[in-house]
């Protein structure tokens, strides 16, 4: 019996100690980890969608915007990445998501302060390679630049100015829907950011 108790005690002690040490390490690395995550997941897209010529790091300067509360009362936060020149915001970007053919399609959308799109980039998706996946190609995303407002950001079949990727209407629609969602949020975010 003594053996068995020792067994339990030693194992619990090792595990507990390990939990203590790890939670400390977790806390200590939390900030840099989050920074790295944003930098490498969103960084490349940010570079594409924000206009050239800003002099800050949009990730360090990110602004958290409260969009409302969920059913549990927890605030819904959105990261907004501002591009600044000489301390003045020249553009900012945030992400938006819509359902595609095989799952969520997530985009980073950049705005000029007046609401004009500065660029759009697909961050994550799981569309069919060669078909839906072609929404990531510049030929498709380039079309969004300089557009403004929900009227312009529509598929050409619905009277908008975006040509869908041929054979991938659903994926294209998802991308467009996500951008539209972002545009809908723009006024509220602009208010908070600027």
């Amino acid at each position, binding site marked *: 019996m003594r053996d068995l108790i020792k067994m*339990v*005690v030693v194992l*619990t002690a*090792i*595990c*507990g100690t390990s*939990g203590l040490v790890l*939670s*400390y390490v977790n806390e200590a690395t939390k900030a840099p980890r989050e920074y790295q995550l944003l930098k490498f997941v969103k960084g490349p897209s940010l570079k594409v969608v924000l206009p050239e010529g800003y002099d800050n790091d949009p990730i360090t300067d990110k602004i958290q915007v409260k969009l409302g509360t969920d059913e549990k009362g927890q605030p819904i936060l959105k990261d907004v990445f501002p591009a600044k020149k000489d301390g003045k915001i020249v553009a900012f970007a945030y992400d938006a998501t819509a359902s595609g053919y095989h799952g969520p399609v997530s985009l980073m959308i950049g705005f000029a302060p007046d609401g004009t799109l500065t660029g759009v980039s697909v961050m994550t998706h799981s569309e069919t390679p060669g078909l839906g996946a072609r929404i990531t190609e510049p030929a498709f995303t380039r079309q969004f630049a300089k557009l403004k407002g929900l009227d312009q950001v529509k598929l050409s079949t619905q009277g908008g100015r975006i040509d869908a990727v041929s054979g991938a209407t659903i994926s294209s629609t998802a991308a467009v829907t996500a951008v539209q969602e972002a545009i809908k949020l723009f006024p509220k975010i602009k208010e908070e950011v600027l």
Partner: protein
Amino acid sequence: MLSAILAIGGLGFVAGVGLAAASKIFYVYVDPLIVAVEEALPGANCGGCGFPGCSGAAEAIATGKAPPTICVGGGPATHAKVASILGIEIKEVEPEIARPGCYYGPQEADLKYIYDGLNDCRAAMLLGGGAKECPVGCLGLGSCVKACPFGALSMGEDGLPRVNASLCTGCGTCERVCPKHIITLTSNSRRVTQEYTLDQCSAPCQRTCPAGIDIPAYIDAAGRGDYLEAVRIIKEKNPFPLVCGRICVHPCENECRRNLLDEPVAINPIKRFVADFEMKSGSRIPIEKAPPTGKRIAVIGGGAEGLTAAFFLARLGHEPTVYEGKPHLGGLLRTIIPDSRLPKDVLDWEIQGILETGVTAHTNTKLGRDVAIGDLLQEGYDAVFVATGGWDSQMSEGLPTEPYQMLPGVHLLVHLSFAHMAGKAPQLAGDAMIVGCGNASIDAAHLLKTLGAQHVHVVFRGSRQESPFTDEELQAAEAQGITFHFRSAITRMFGRAGDLTHVEVASLEKYVPGQTLQQLHEQAALQHIPVQTLVTGAGRFPELIYAPVYEQRGEGDQQELVRTDHWETVVPYAGPFAEEDVGIFRPGEATTDYKAVVEAIGAGRRGAASVHKRLMGEEVAAPPGMIRRSTRVLTVDTLEPLSPQPREKMPALSPVEQMANPEAEVELGFSEEQVRREAQRCLRCGLICYRRPLQEPESLAKSA
């Protein structure tokens, strides 16, 4: 932070409690001994022990079903560890090592076809038994090398496996995978008890050697200049290389394949040189011995045969004691061979060497006068081996008129009749038996009746038609209480203490020469005839092993073997030169004498091997497939062109020198250069291979 500690600590706690509980709930009793033993085993799972892996072996060892030494892979260190776990002492186990038994690789041997299939001997074997002409040749595809779990084997340049002795553990895996049984385990015990069989490579000379020396191997060693290795090889079959090197009749040289070309290799002079080399070096090579068995054996007779038997019994781990009636050991070697052929100091050095291997000798102790077989067994000897020698050694003592009984109840007819003429014959009681008296059988039977025997049995090896007696004579004799057993042989004698009680007689009607005693037993009824006296017409006593009879006492688990004062005789298995192999008095060997010392040496070694088999509980029989004189063996009768090379001449004293010093040794022995040259003449024969110029592939293709 707290949640992390709680979560992981909690998981650890649950896991710990779970394991602790499980180890209680699902507790299965495993003998801690088994666990401990298994940990001590090497874990190679080689299967050399015959159990399914090390865990199986551990269980068998811990439960006493197997000895702690069964792990051949681990060797003595493991045995000691296992034994110390079990808390018992271990008996040392004789080390074994794999030995390839083929000397000519596929490039050098005659081939039936070019094999280009799966790289595995077992696959090659399926194609007409492999590519080699020779039925017992190594196929050289290295199945054994791949199978070796200890990496002790490698393939040589010549296409034959090489054994790294330091890595070989004697597990026997190679032996089991070799489809031709070429690579075998060998130990000192296996080598000294070996006979040449049909499934191994042997040269004509070694098959002809009555002692069975591996002649090509020792000549090869001598040719390399490794003279002591040559001596070691010779002494695995013959403890008398100095003697044989001088006086052997060397039948081997008659069969030497070089006879087909020029003259035979000087096999015997080479032996003499290497033996002299050892003697002149002043020290003796160490003789390999099996671990002690604790068995004591009395050897009766200190001549060449008795000393040989004692030497090999000592090498097999037993404790032999030689009883010699005369003041000196050596028998006829000392009494009838002149100094000019065999100097006494050479003989003494040789005999001293035999004694030093662990042989005790009592001289001036004569069987029947100073010591009796019954008493020796009573004293605790585990066997008595009788090697009293030929008729000439009996005669050299003069004809005894007061016959003392050497073997219990056994008399030589010649002694008995001389004693009777002198009026000093013993009074006989009970029934008697006569064997091997030929024409004199009926007269001898009458003599026995005169001496007091009640009923007399006469055993004939031949049939009734072959007997020299007419039907009337036989009928008359039978009417007088004489019973004839035709076509029969005496296979065993039984007795108690100093008395013969009965004799086992087997009918040979269905006997086929070459069969063993056991096979005979299976097909013929055995008669046990109670007799107190056995008379033989032979001039000598046969070689016999007297062994105590054990009785099983107690019941169930309490059974134990208890030694009684009863004994039985065991006949050593006959060598290759006997015509028949069953019966105490068998033609061709026991009833004649050894014409040469080398034959006595062979019989002595086979006697030792027979005693060993008896003591180890094995059947006393020649190994299956032993090559006998009548066996047809694959050989070659022509040699490919080889350059003749004259045989070296033996340097000898001139007749003038001989006259001047009659005691001096006449033959002087080869010089070292002569030995080296002569050894080069040896063709290092195998069954059909021999050393010859390498064939070019083209000519091989042409000849195919």
